[in-house]
């Protein structure tokens, strides 16, 4: 059984972002980039399924500029077997990425695609659901547990009211939530080994996918700033302020 794991290169979650002065977006030049944290969880889950003997091959995929090779190498170091970079400098939005992934699924024939539930840059939370739609597969989104059965997969989902368990026919899509697992750090020997694992590069055009953005970003601005507050010396003062100044209790 083959698992496909798409991974996105994003600004590292610890970096405080800077907006471009012209209001067109976020500065990415000379900024630390990493694999989207949810995608690390997705890779980890795939690797664990392989270690448990349930999967035979893990193919990592990334869509974006050449720098994504680094992200793919990380996935390979974590345990993916080979990687595909769909190289483009165009801004790829979730629908375009889903179409590219659909083309790759048609070619590779995986039984499971595990994605991160959202990317921490655009915060869209769409790609997995869109890919499931295009393939006509079931989707187990926001997963905190994945159990492979015979011809089906059981997924525990984190939902607003608690947890929900669904069963999906295979092949299926799973999107990883934070508590699915704790991703491993790649060891040095594995990082070295990853350099020799195959990494193939294709283009969206070769896959027959039009990646032109559907949404136009008109501007990107800073959110309204909160004004600085005060420190209160004790609980009594706090209660007094909440009652008589803020009038919220």
């Amino acid at each position, binding site marked *: 059984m083959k698992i496909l794991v798409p991974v996105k290169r994003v*600004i590292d979650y610890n970096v405080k*972002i800077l*907006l471009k002065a012209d209001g067109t977006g*976020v500065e990415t030049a000379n900024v630390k980039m990493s694999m989207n944290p949810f995608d690390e969880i997705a890779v980890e889950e795939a690797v664990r399924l392989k270690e448990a003997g349930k999967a035979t091959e893990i193919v990592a995929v990334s869509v974006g500029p050449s720098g994504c090779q680094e992200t793919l190498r990380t996935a390979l170091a974590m345990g993916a077997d080979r990687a595909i970079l769909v190289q483009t400098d165009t801004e790829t*939005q*979730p629908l375009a990425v*889903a179409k590219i992934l659909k083309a790759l699924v048609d070619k590779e024939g995986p039984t499971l695609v595990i994605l991160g539930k959202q990317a*921490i*840059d*655009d*915060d*869209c*939370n*769409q790609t997995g*659901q869109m890919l*499931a*739609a*295009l393939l*006509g597969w079931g*989707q*187990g*989104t*926001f997963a*905190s547990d994945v159990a492979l059965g015979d011809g089906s997969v059981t997924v525990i989902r*984190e939902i*607003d*009211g*608690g*947890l*929900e368990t*669904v*069963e999906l*026919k295979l092949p299926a899509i799973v999107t990883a*939530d*934070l*508590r699915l697992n704790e991703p491993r750090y790649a060891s040095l020997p594995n990082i070295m080994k990853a350099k020799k694992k195959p990494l193939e590069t294709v283009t969206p055009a070769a896959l027959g996918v039009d990646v032109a953005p*559907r*949404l136009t970003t*008109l*501007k*990107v*601005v*800073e*959110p309204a700033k*909160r004004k*600085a*507050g*005060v*420190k*209160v010396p*004790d*609980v*009594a003062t*706090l*209660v007094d*302020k*909440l009652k008589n100044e*803020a009038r*919220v*209790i």
Partner: protein
Amino acid sequence: MTILILAEHDNAILKPATLNTVTAAAKIGGDIHVLVAGKGAQGVAEAASKIVGVSKVLLVDDAAYEHALAEPLAAFLVEIGRNYSHILAPATSVGKNVLPRVAALLDVAAVSDITGVVSEDIFERPIYAGNAIATVQSRDGVKVVTVRTTAFEAAGPGGSAPVETVSATGNPGLSSFVSAELSKSERPELTSARIVISGGRGMQSGDNFHLLEAIADKLGAAVGASRAAVDAGFVPNDYQVGQTGKIVAPELYIAVGISGAIQHLAGMKDSKVIVAINKDEEAAIFQVADYGLVTDLFKALPELAEAL
């Protein structure tokens, strides 16, 4: 121009998130239809028909929609959705699961988690955990949009829309509901509570959350948590506030033993008044707090419960 809203409900009760979504739809303009898809959800449809501004309620009552599974629900929405200019849903776990699937089936973009409506096709939405606000324009025939409920007021009562029953489109049979483990609480729902008190890693254990609950009960507040508190097993996952948890914007948010990581701030920094209780005066949470109390929470919480 007619807008279709996917109602949020549990087959018995219409969830308040639907009301905020109606307000977002009213800002876009045009007729507003509300779709209630469920099983035995007649009462929900009647509740939806009383929302001011709604001109029609569509009720599709079928076992396929009982648990809001994305596969049958999206298949249905695609059938009827083509006739609409916009399909909206609140950005809840149901809306976020279903609407992108609908968008892809319609071959249109989805716009997630909007916080502002500029025009019928221009929307504002937070990116990078709310550290930037993007204004985006959709030129697609149908705009598929999820709405951040805290950014829009709840629409009031006063409507009297007709309820029209529509037939189901069947279940593609890709998925099935097995079970749900829902947190039960007498307290208000986190996302619509007027006051929220949240605990972080500093709480040290699930038992210690009783200290927060005592205060919550006095204030009529909901209880939330940071990711660290959920990961440590102090409280269930549905307590998590943040970029990847729930977004809240109550009148009063009290953060206790929470350091103020950007991913947490993303979920609560639009609260009207923020209080932080933390023993580390350098904690980032104080940068967004209106009132900060630098002290040991195990001293402050009993005192606070006493003072209220």
